[in-house]
């Protein structure tokens, strides 16, 4: 911890230190009891006095910190993130459709902060990789030797004219992406709509998305709720996609469209949400034939997404190609090491790679990033590669889901080869509702 103070100012008060010690004592039995395959591979630890800075304490940041604690002997590890709450985001769709209570998706970051890791409760405002320096939103200057960039992504509601996130939950507006409060309010708006029925418009932007299955799940679940309430007959669900598909993996796209056809969910392609008039309940879409105004009773808004400003405005962002507009982090998609700054690695939603904005991606990518970083610290080349593993249990109704897993090339890569990915099952539903949160927590703790 002392070494960290050389780089930054003290951040823990006496109370914080005492609490850390207690946590350390409490964690001792668990730490000695958990001998995992990944521990076995993680050892022997690399001896180093390097300062590793991790930007972001979401799933990516915390799991990287936990693993690096074990992999690096003597390193100073600092996490930078002003957010105190930890959200289990994969549970948002369940909260937004009235299946889960919100408490299941809200935890405290402090409960998962690895022992011995310094946590600075501030956000990165600027990253200067030439000077190996991060400046926080409160002006603190933090120097690093190695950097793990893991600040997730930014929801760009501002790009939709007239959209006001304060309206989520009323006037027929829902948006599952707007944090845990957004999920609760989406269920409020959806419940009110379901009781009466009417015209629902679901949207999909053209940018990269975190969990690209979530907008589809919302359409499936809305249809199921209408059916359950007996208002399906007087309702109409239309899915407006900005793209020429609804999902980037062709086989999954096809399977979803066939199901929607059978369920009566209609689809418009190349319909991007441009503007919304909340009081008049009217949405404007850009289409190949010009602008189209549509009235609605329920509008599910999925905002365009991009990298957070600190990355987008830094030299770390892609400067050309498909990922430049979103300012995504320029990493090599296999080693997840920055393509121009060798001491920088990227993990999680911020990465400018072909696929992989899911928690499941972090599960598979974190060991690659942390072991490659440890190799670089030890003066070697990164040896591990990532295949782009992305997974999304696609809930098709309350009680059934499809367990979809794929790689960078869009090849379906089921973990359990006997299980047909495009077959809906109760098994996948149980995974989604009962088993994935504990799996997520195990990843968060750097154990799985």
């Amino acid at each position, binding site marked *: 911890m002392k070494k960290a103070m050389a780089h930054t100012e003290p951040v823990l008060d006496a109370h914080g230190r005492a609490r850390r010690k207690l946590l350390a004592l409490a964690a001792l039995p668990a730490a000695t009891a958990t001998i995992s395959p990944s521990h076995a591979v993680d050892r022997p630890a690399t001896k180093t006095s390097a300062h590793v800075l991790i930007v972001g304490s979401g799933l990516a940041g915390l799991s990287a910190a936990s693993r690096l604690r074990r992999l690096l002997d003597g390193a100073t590890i600092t996490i930078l993130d002003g957010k105190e709450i930890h959200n289990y985001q994969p549970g948002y769709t369940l909260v937004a459709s009235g299946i889960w209570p919100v408490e299941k998706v809200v935890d405290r970051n402090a409960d998962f902060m690895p022992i011995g890791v310094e946590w600075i409760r501030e956000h990165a405002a600027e990253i200067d990789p030439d000077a190996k320096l991060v400046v926080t939103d409160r002006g603190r200057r933090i120097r690093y030797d190695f950097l793990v960039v893991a600040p997730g992504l930014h929801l760009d509601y501002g790009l939709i004219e007239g959209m006001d996130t304060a309206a989520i939950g009323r006037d027929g507006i829902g948006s599952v992406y707007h944090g845990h409060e957004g999920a609760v309010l989406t269920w409020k708006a959806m419940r009110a709509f379901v009781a009466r029925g009417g015209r629902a418009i679901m949207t999909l932007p053209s940018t990269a998305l975190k969990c690209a299955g979530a907008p589809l799940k919302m359409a499936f679940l809305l249809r199921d709720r209408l059916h359950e309430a007996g208002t399906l007959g007087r309702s109409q669900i239309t899915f407006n996609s900005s793209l020429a598909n609804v999902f980037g993996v062709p086989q999954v796209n096809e399977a979803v469209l066939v199901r929607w056809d059978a369920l009566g969910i209609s689809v418009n392609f190349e319909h991007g949400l441009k503007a919304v008039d909340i009081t008049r309940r009217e949405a404007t879409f850009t289409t190949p034939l010009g602008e189209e105004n549509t009235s609605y009773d329920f509008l599910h808004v999925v905002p365009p997404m991009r990298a957070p400003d600190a990355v987008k405005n830094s030299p770390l962002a892609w400067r050309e190609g498909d990922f430049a507009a979103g300012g995504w982090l320029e990493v090599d998609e296999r080693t997840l090491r920055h393509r121009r700054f060798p001491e920088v690695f990227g993990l999680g939603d911020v990465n400018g790679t072909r696929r992989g904005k899911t928690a499941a991606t972090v599960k598979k990518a974190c060991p690659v990033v942390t072991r490659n970083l440890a190799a670089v610290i030890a003066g070697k080349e990164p040896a591990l590669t990532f295949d782009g593993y992305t997974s999304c249990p696609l809930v098709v109704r309350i009680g059934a889901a499809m367990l979809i897993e794929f790689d960078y090339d869009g090849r379906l890569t089921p*973990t359990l080869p006997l299980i047909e990915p495009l077959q809906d099952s*109760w*098994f996948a539903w149980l995974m989604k509702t009962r088993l994935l949160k*504990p799996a997520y927590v*195990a990843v968060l703790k750097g154990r799985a």
Partner: protein
Amino acid sequence: MMYEIWLGLNIVWELALMHKAWVIPAGTIMLILLASAIVRPPRAGRRAPVFAAGVVSAIAAFLLLPGATMAGFADLGYWVDWLLLFALSVAIGVAVAISAAGLCALIPDRWLRQIPSSR
């Protein structure tokens, strides 16, 4: 495959931590009952009610588990679902049978003599 087994163990561990408020007392009781069932296995006359408790629980689990998870039998459209439901029901039946056996071992003989089927 090693990784999947490890992940599965982690899921069980985290589930237990999440529900420790009832997992610890229930687990302790189960262990005591298991130990008592091992030390004093049910005699021939007591096996029938133990077996019956297990079978009834397994059937109840089979019928109730989908509903308890917000699903219905109509959602079990894949052979994997039926296999899973069967396996879970058998596991619950076995756990109840073991508990019943342990309980039998703890209950004094004169109490059990009053139950006709255990004579």
